[in-house]
């Protein structure tokens, strides 16, 4: 029996969220005295794939085939179901991102295997198999028992830190033929991100601003602050609705939910729907001129003051810190 981790590859290496899933899956495997096996779909050198061993995996099965060039949920599900059978896996792990959201539920229905999506902690194995996740948009948590023979979990990115080990993983090619897994959909990729832009869903540091900034022309100072920090930029919903900022920056209940290490909120009131997308952040800094702004209740650090005065000072202070280190 084994634990199977479905890992994603980007630019020839495992994605950070997949390394988290590999480590998480390996820790479950060791508790259950099973092997952790990684299914790596995409193009990467064996030496890169073997790095899964540093995160606790024993073996990597690689599949590099045009049928899996884009995430067709049907083709992925059929392949993963076959690998679950051939590896006799009783636990299957995904990352709770676009791929996980497309494929894990399909696999769950196909295998009649209970799924907990968006897990935030290691399962509790003391009484059955109980997985924790956030519900009510981060306002509560639920402990959910999976009782089916095969169990599926998709792990929320940035919620469980990977544990490094000394191990190595052996890399082998998928033993079957991948030709039969024909995608039902076709797809074309369009690159829209500017060079050097940090992708918001995976960012560790995020600088976000709201309607308090008055107009799109004032985002220069936000981008500068993000630039010196190496942070991604985000915004509140009205700001993207009026078109001051692109839609993909909108965080909150109806936008992206993110869990960075640091979230700096500037001129955002902290409405409950906004908080729903950011309350998983490890540290929250709020800059707002209104001391009564609800965001201060959710913040770790706060400055009551005018963003137009404070942000440039903050940028300067960070520059100073960076040059001193």
């Amino acid at each position, binding site marked *: 029996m084994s634990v199977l981790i479905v890992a994603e590859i980007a630019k020839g290496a495992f994605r950070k969220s997949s390394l988290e899933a590999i480590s998480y899956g390996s820790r479950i495997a060791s508790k259950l005295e099973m092997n952790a096996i990684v299914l790596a779909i995409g193009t990467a050198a064996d030496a890169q794939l073997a790095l899964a061993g540093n995160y606790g995996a024993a073996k990597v099965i690689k599949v590099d085939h045009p049928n899996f060039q884009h995430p*067709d*949920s*049907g083709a992925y599900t059929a392949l993963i179901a076959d690998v679950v059978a051939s590896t006799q896996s009783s636990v299957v792990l995904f990352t709770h991102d*676009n791929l996980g*959201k*497309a*494929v894990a*539920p*399909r696999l*769950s*229905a*196909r295998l*009649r295997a*209970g*799924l907990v*999506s968006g897990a935030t902690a290691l399962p509790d194995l003391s009484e059955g198999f*109980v997985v924790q996740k*956030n*519900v*009510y*948009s*981060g*306002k*509560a948590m*639920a*402990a959910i028992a999976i*009782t*089916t023979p095969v169990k599926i979990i998709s792990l929320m990115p940035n919620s469980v830190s990977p544990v490094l080990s000394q191990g190595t993983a052996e890399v082998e090619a998928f033993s079957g033929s991948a030709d039969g897994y024909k995608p*039902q*959909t076709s*797809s*074309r*990729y*369009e690159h829209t*991100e500017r060079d050097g832009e940090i*992708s918001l869903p995976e960012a560790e*540091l995020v600088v976000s601003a709201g309607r308090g900034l008055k107009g799109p022309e004032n985002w220069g100072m936000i981008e500068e602050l993000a630039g010196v*920090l190496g942070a991604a930029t985000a915004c509140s919903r009205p700001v993207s609705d009026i078109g001051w900022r692109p*839609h993909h920056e*909108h965080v909150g*209940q*109806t936008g992206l939910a993110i869990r960075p290490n*640091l979230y700096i909120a500037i001129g955002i009131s902290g409405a409950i729907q906004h908080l729903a997308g950011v309350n998983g952040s490890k*540290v929250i*800094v709020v800059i707002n001129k209104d001391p009564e702004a609800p965001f201060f*209740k*959710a913040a*770790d*650090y*706060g*400055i*009551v*003051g*005018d963003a137009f005065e404070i942000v440039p*000072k*903050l940028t300067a*202070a*960070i520059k*100073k*810190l960076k040059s001193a280190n």
Partner: protein
Amino acid sequence: MKILVCISQAPDTTSKISFIDNDTRFNDDKVQFIVNPYDEWYALVRALEIKESLGGHVSAISVGGPALETVIRKVLAIGADDAIRIDAEPSDSFGVASAIAEYAKDKGYDLILTGKETIDYNGSEVGGMLAELLGLPFVSLASKLDLSEGKVVLETAAEGGLEIVTAPLPCVISAAKGMAEARIPNMRGIMAARTKPIEVAAGNAPALVQIKKFSLPAPKSSVKLIDPENVEQLVELLHNEAKVI
């Protein structure tokens, strides 16, 4: 075009969240329920737009008890032609998907839409499960949906850009922000909704997982306020105390 839109209800976004029965059940006392925003704003409205431009029929389906009537009437007021309530009490997403699949399997829908996720369970699960049970293609989190030559053309966010996906009909699609703009029901819609049919169908909702216990996050310790004249102190704290920069 025969379109089926899956509708769930969710506590109004400002509701106070608390639990009863030894923290095993959501306390719905004084809670107002709304149509799950993704289902209403994006999936339903896009379905109506397609019907308006190409003709067809839009049905809404919801799995649950009689209390769903309020959100179903709202959906009819916005413009759905009719609605189905599957009278079952699902306890997980698989239960919802099974009940809908059983109902929809021989009805010949061209397009089945769900929301990206429910804002209470936050699963993003029902659409994929439904597609698998019906043996249909599934594309999740589409922020744009168009019909072209009998196929759907979708946009979904991908790392650093967009994936433009073409899927054959029939298929299941989950709708994310961007697919449409929310509509407010008008008086005529509200009046018309009163006479639109709601079919109540029997169904089963088998479960694969069970919620054991809910809990609330530990209250945040109070905010550390920093003097606006001393911004450097914030940087110092973020570096040495919080260790995030």
